[in-house]
């Protein structure tokens, strides 16, 4: 059958372990994907050194979206930081809002109303659905199947409508504030949400038929882009990427936050750790989120009550010295905020730990070696990275 040479010897290494790549030999070609490149996930770039169709070395270049959030947050008060954190990750901004709010609440000792916890969980799951839908479109698109992106973006847009009526904005919701959430569910929200969830399930059924039960798609993704077991820890792999490798690691289950200990679910896991499995894990995780939203809507307090705890006057809010780390399971993996306070009205230091940070940098650079250049885009998408959370 097909000729499958052992590629582990390539590219050749020098005695000191560095890659033996001589650009002047004419054997290698430097190839930049991005930042202006449709195959790149957002505004970043990868510098590939290819030999024929095979990648000998890949380097991720980020910083195109760097705004210096961690610096900016040091000169904004605790409340002023709440609108800016969501900008750190565009497709799934809510985790920033939640992690930041939770870190602040923990250090300031604020007890959030239970209702707010439910609404927060609802928003996070809605955001997760959006993020996954975008991923599915991107994954199929990276392989040339445009129609999936059309369908998934359509249903994502329906979900954005739900976001809009709940939070007052489509993309940057700015709804989860330190202290709670801004408001209760609007009237009739549950019905409309149920309708949207139905649409999403329909779309997913189609996507399953057209994308996952697809000979060409399988051909392109099965066995490609495998994350080896020993890389999982050394490269800080989290989220669907680690679950696709068969490790049932899900912060929602391991260290339950918000109301996840009151919901019934099991982490979705896969087996093969290749692109296909990761896509499949995400698809099933999406369905899990649909189910979780139903659970949340049926179990949360049905009446309207306060959704915000009383905070000090936000204009002069000071927090005692302390440090903490708050994490959540976002669609891409572990999302966390490390917050240090020093008793002043401003954070001393905020560090955002986005899953893309490890995935797109060290892990991707490791995985791209020996990869066919036609697979690079698909591989990058399958790690589901969002550049803004790498560089902040």
């Amino acid at each position, binding site marked *: 059958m097909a000729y499958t040479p052992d590629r582990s010897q390539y590219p050749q290494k020098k005695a000191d372990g560095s890659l033996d790549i001589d650009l002047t030999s004419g054997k290698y070609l430097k190839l930049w994907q991005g930042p202006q490149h449709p195959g790149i996930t957002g505004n970043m770039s990868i510098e590939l050194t290819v030999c024929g169709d095979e990648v000998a070395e890949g380097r991720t270049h*980020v*910083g195109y979206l*760097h705004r*210096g959030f*961690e*610096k*900016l947050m*040091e*000169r904004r008060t605790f409340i002023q930081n709440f609108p800016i954190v969501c900008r750190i990750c565009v497709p799934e901004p809510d985790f920033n809002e939640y992690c930041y709010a939770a870190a602040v609440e*923990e250090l300031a000792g604020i007890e959030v109303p239970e209702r707010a916890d439910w609404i927060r969980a609802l928003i996070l799951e809605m955001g997760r659905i959006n993020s996954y839908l975008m991923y599915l479109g991107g994954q199929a698109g990276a392989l040339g199947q445009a129609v999936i992106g059309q369908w998934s973006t359509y249903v994502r847009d329906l979900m954005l409508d739900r976001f809009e009526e709940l939070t007052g904005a489509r993309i940057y919701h700015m709804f989860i504030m330190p202290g709670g959430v801004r408001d209760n569910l609007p009237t009739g929200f549950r019905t409309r949400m149920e309708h949207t969830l139905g649409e999403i399930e329909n779309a997913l059924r189609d996507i399953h038929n057209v994308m996952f039960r697809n000979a060409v798609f399988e051909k392109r993704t099965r066995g490609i882009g495998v994350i080896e077991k020993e890389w999982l*820890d*050394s*490269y*800080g792999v*989290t989220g669907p990427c680690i679950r696709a490798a068969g*490790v049932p*690691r899900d912060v929602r289950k*391991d*260290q339950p936050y918000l109301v996840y200990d009151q919901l019934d679910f099991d982490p979705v896991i896969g087996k093969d750790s290749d692109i296909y499995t990761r896509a499949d894990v995400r698809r099933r995780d999406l369905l899990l989120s649909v189910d979780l939203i139903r659970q949340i809507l049926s179990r949360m307090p049905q009446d309207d009550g306060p959704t915000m705890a009383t905070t000090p006057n936000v204009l002069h809010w000071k927090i005692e010295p*302390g*440090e*903490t*780390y708050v*994490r959540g399971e976002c669609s891409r993996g*572990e999302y*966390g905020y*490390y917050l*240090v306070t020093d008793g002043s009205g401003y954070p*001393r*230091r905020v*560090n955002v*730990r986005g899953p893309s*940070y*490890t995935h797109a*940098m*060290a*892990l991707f650079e*490791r995985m791209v070696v020996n990869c066919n250049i036609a697979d690079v885009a698909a591989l990058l998408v399958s790690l589901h990275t969002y550049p803004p959370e790498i*560089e902040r």
Partner: protein
Amino acid sequence: MIELYEQLKQRYALGEISVQRFDLVFITVPRENLASLLLYLRDTEGFTHLVLLTAVDWIEDNKFQLTYLINNRESATDLGLRVIIDRDEASMESIHDLWPTAATYQRELKEMFGIDFPGSPRIDEDFILEGWTEIPPYRRDFDTLEYSRDTYLERPGRSTSDPAQHMKQLFYPEDKD
């Protein structure tokens, strides 16, 4: 977690411990113990996941605090190791041989705080910034607003009044103070 601390204390010189949550503890560690402690925690105690590595600038004390946050996936607990290093000529041993992914964190720290990690791969390469000439931007003594004002011009024509000052102008302008 406290048991672990007590147990570690037998073997390593440890600084203060602060318990933030039942599953999150921060321990101050002398810098020379860090690498062996990390190795021990990773291989023996199951703290296999390097969550993050970052720095805090305590400019008042002329110190940097490096925070190594590691996570035990089995017991779902987090351990933050604080290492205090001098702010001048800041430098720290690299741990990229323990976690390859640490190289990225170290590159960022080098660029954003100016903390050197000799031997870490590509440590001197530009990471996020490009052609940066000022002091590393995450240091507390770098004033981003001032830099931004000097470098990127604002759209002119804005002015604001303080209500109290404005009312003073209107109602009792003669008052000196």
